[in-house]
């Protein structure tokens, strides 16, 4: 199965980029690809419950719906631990589909031939 890695660094600070990243991720899911979104920098906040609810941008579904569809259809969220801890977030309260993974896991996925996009 083809693999797609989406590198996402934004959250509420840039609703447009954040939303489009999930739209493209869901296109990958629809194409029956294995899709991972690597949440790093500000994007780690998306792995906390309720945070994505406040994000919406014109022309697209609210992020809450895009995120739910992504997870329900097998998409994975990888959360960068240092970025997460640096923001004082609760490591024991991640949303479903999110788990901690860092640079080595990302590099391994790329080494396996995953295509990548960065937002």
């Amino acid at each position: 199965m083809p693999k797609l890695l989406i590198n996402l660094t934004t959250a509420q600070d840039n609703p447009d980029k954040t939303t489009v990243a999930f739209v493209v991720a869901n296109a990958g899911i629809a194409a029956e690809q294995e899709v991972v979104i690597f949440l790093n920098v500000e994007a780690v906040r998306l792995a906390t419950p309720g945070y994505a609810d406040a994000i919406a941008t014109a022309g697209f579904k609210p992020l809450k719906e895009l995120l739910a569809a992504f997870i329900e259809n097998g998409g994975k969220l990888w959360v960068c631990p240092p970025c997460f801890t640096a923001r004082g977030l609760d490591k024991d309260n991640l949303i479903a589909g999110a788990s901690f993974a860092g640079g080595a896991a990302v590099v391994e996925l790329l080494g396996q031939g995953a295509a990548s996009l960065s937002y």
Partner: protein
Amino acid sequence: MAKYPHLFIASGAYHQYAQQRGATMVPDAVLDAGEAGCGELTLLIFQAVRRLAPGQTLEVHAYDLAAAVDIPAWCRSTGNMLVRAATGAHPQRFVIRKRLAIGAHTSAQAAD
């Protein structure tokens, strides 16, 4: 937990001492990676393993939330062998055996 990462290379005398005290598995080096995570953690491991001879072992102590994902991934990517992973411990402890030669990719893992 070490504030800064620390690498301890065991001497022959240390091995003899540990074996006399009944230790069954004495690593050739111990890396306390402290709070290092993401790419910093595996860079420390890479640097530590580079100082070992092929076949020698490195015990890594890590507090990183993704250590249980990243260290096995690094081993698979580089062909070094993960021979032990105690991910429920605090800190988490891993034992890595340096690959015998470049290109000799092997992997095995025993989690406890």
